[in-house]
């Protein structure tokens, strides 16, 4: 009898577990490092300097325009490595599945992960599966951890230690797409805007930027909390300030409309395919061109600069020429009446 739903047995390590692993996970993720299915994957790295990261994914709904939890799980970890100045190589993945979860849906998620991993040039080399009783977790949670090799000279990219006044701030495209796509897909709001998540692996783009020139000083992916949070965090406690220009920040019309309707600020909405970079002023235009020539950077823009004034603070010049501070949001943005 063919299984249609996940049973507790699938997580217990016995025959059912083995079948699931063999017929689903190994089948889709197939690579020589995973095949042995040992307790650990045995890796050989070409560099002594490594980057290592982990992330867990609990998005609701599991499928949304532009992606799904699987694509997110791969891209999220790949991007954390990429923006730290590393070449992502190997991923692990852990699944926590609710009893009764449809196998068909799990297969879709796994297929999506395999496709994204292939696009990014990474291998999923080890994993784990646990099944919990119905009601003990919300359908499916995925954790991925990833290891990558540091690119020569990129040690300061994550910390931004070499940032100086006059450096320019760049982003590879429009903000707010992912957060609003997920919000729209939640279906409780009856708003449809055709917003598609920007979920994507950025390592190809970041490697291009890093290899062409030594001028990239800092990178971060603008996920939860959005662009605004990245900026506020970057300059907090530092001797420099940040000046952003609202007019230069790319936002899709449909995202803008949805945000106006709900009272959200696109500056703080989540992204899953956006990297914010700080680059030296002389190289800014060149890096912009490099990004624009890449499919994930077509709408790239220079959105601000590092300043000597208002140290520790990010200021935004608004579209009408006024000024205001960009601070870290207190919590999540919620649909409001005021």
């Amino acid at each position, binding site marked *: 009898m063919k299984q249609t739903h996940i049973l507790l047995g699938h997580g217990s390590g016995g025959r059912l577990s083995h079948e699931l692993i063999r017929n689903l996970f190994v089948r889709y993720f197939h690579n020589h490092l995973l095949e042995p299915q040992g307790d650990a994957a045995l890796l050989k790295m070409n560099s002594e300097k490594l980057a290592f990261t982990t992330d867990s994914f609990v998005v609701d709904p599991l499928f949304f325009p532009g992606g799904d939890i699987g694509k997110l799980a791969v891209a999220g970890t790949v991007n954390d490595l990429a923006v730290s100045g590393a070449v992502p190589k190997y991923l692990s993945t852990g699944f926590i599945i609710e009893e009764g979860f449809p196998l068909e849906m799990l297969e879709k998620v796994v297929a999506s992960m395999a496709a994204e991993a292939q696009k990014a040039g990474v291998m999923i080399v080890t994993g784990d599966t646990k099944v919990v009783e119905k009601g003990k977790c919300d359908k499916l949670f995925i954790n991925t951890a990833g290891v990558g090799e540091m690119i020569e000279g990129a040690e300061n990219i994550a910390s931004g230690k070499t940032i100086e006044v006059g450096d320019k701030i760049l982003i590879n495209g429009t903000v707010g797409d992912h957060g609003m796509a997920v919000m729209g897909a939640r279906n409780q709001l009856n708003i449809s805007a055709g917003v598609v998540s920007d979920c994507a692996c950025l390592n190809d783009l970041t490697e291009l930027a890093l290899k062409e020139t030594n001028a990239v000083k800092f990178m971060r992916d603008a996920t939860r909390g959005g662009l605004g949070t990245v900026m506020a965090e970057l300059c907090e406690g530092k001797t420099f300030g940040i000046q952003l220009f609202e007019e230069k920040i790319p936002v899709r019309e449909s995202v*803008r*409309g949805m945000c106006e309707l709900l009272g959200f600020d696109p500056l703080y909405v989540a992204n899953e395919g956006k990297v914010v970079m700080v680059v030296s002023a002389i190289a800014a235009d060149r890096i912009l061109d490099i990004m624009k020539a890449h499919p994930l950077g077509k709408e790239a823009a220079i959105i601000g600069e590092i300043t000597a004034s208002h140290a520790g603070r990010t200021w935004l010049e608004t579209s009408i*020429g*006024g000024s205001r501070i960009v601070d870290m949001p207190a919590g999540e943005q919620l649909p409001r*009446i005021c």
Partner: protein
Amino acid sequence: MKYIDEYRDKEKVISISNRIRFSSKKHIRLMEVCGGHTMAIQRFGIPSLLPENIELVSGPGCPVCVTSRAYIDQAIAYSRLPDVIITTYGDLIRVPGSTSTLDRERAAGSDIRIVYSILDALMIAKKNRQKKVVFLGIGFETTSPATAAGILKAQMAGLFNFFVYSAHKIMPPPMAALIDQGVNIHGYIGPGHVSTITGSHIYDFIPEKYGMGVVISGFEPLDLLQSIYMLVLQHENETPKVEIQYSRAVKPEGNQKAKDMLEEVFELRDDWWRGLGTLHESGFAIRERFAEFDAEKMLSVEVEPTREDKGCICGTVLKGLAKPSDCKLFGKACTPSDPVGACMVSNEGACAAYYRFKRTEA
């Protein structure tokens, strides 16, 4: 986006800012009484465009800020009943009650859902007949008609598991009370969307009794700047009156159909406002003929005694008599992520707006 972008035109903003600068000689202090205005003023950085003699002060225009802790405590008590689903606008979810917040209660297991519209709450009631769905009705005359419409719909559909817990309030009483209680302003930036419903005549008593003007303003930068300009002119020429800047949406007579709905479903009662105390006939109670949808009449619940926090001067800040930075708790014990008072929670509570946009004089 039409009717939005044109009112954000940078060139026009510069022109009117210059005009204001040129015309405004006397010191003038203006108060906005609408949370949406507070947000818009801060979001676009309006104060940075005005000359120093023009002072903008935030008033009690945020329905969340003026709502009592007792209301939150009772809402929390409802949420703890086993068969209740609470439906609420996002604004209320982190407002402090005496010992908890709706957010925390949700984490503890209560069924509390954020809705964009009372229509969503009605849908939830339809789909969950065995549960009691309580809708937290906050807001002024802009939002009250929606609640009235919702109650009428519930009655028509026989949705007897749907209840409204009303905290709705009306605008004119606090505007009078503020001046009576000694707030020193020269004019009001009048609430734009409240006025689309009420019309402009509800403010006529303000120039008549207090000698200061009210300009009903839209929410885009040009609207606000134009309203400020009109108030400046009134002040310079000593001609206080009620004017409508937001003419594309506000008619002097307002929206009669919506007003009729309000009249049908609600009646006025005395109500308590943070910072102002109890104001005569300033709140909406659900009429007797709709009693079966009134949470206060239909659901009995024990509510803990209300405790206001010492040190919190939300009341004074709401009146514009103190700046958020004057409060001992501001930025220390009371921050947006861990708020003590309502002014810090609401997105356009004066304290939250101040904290986000202005924390240090840069």
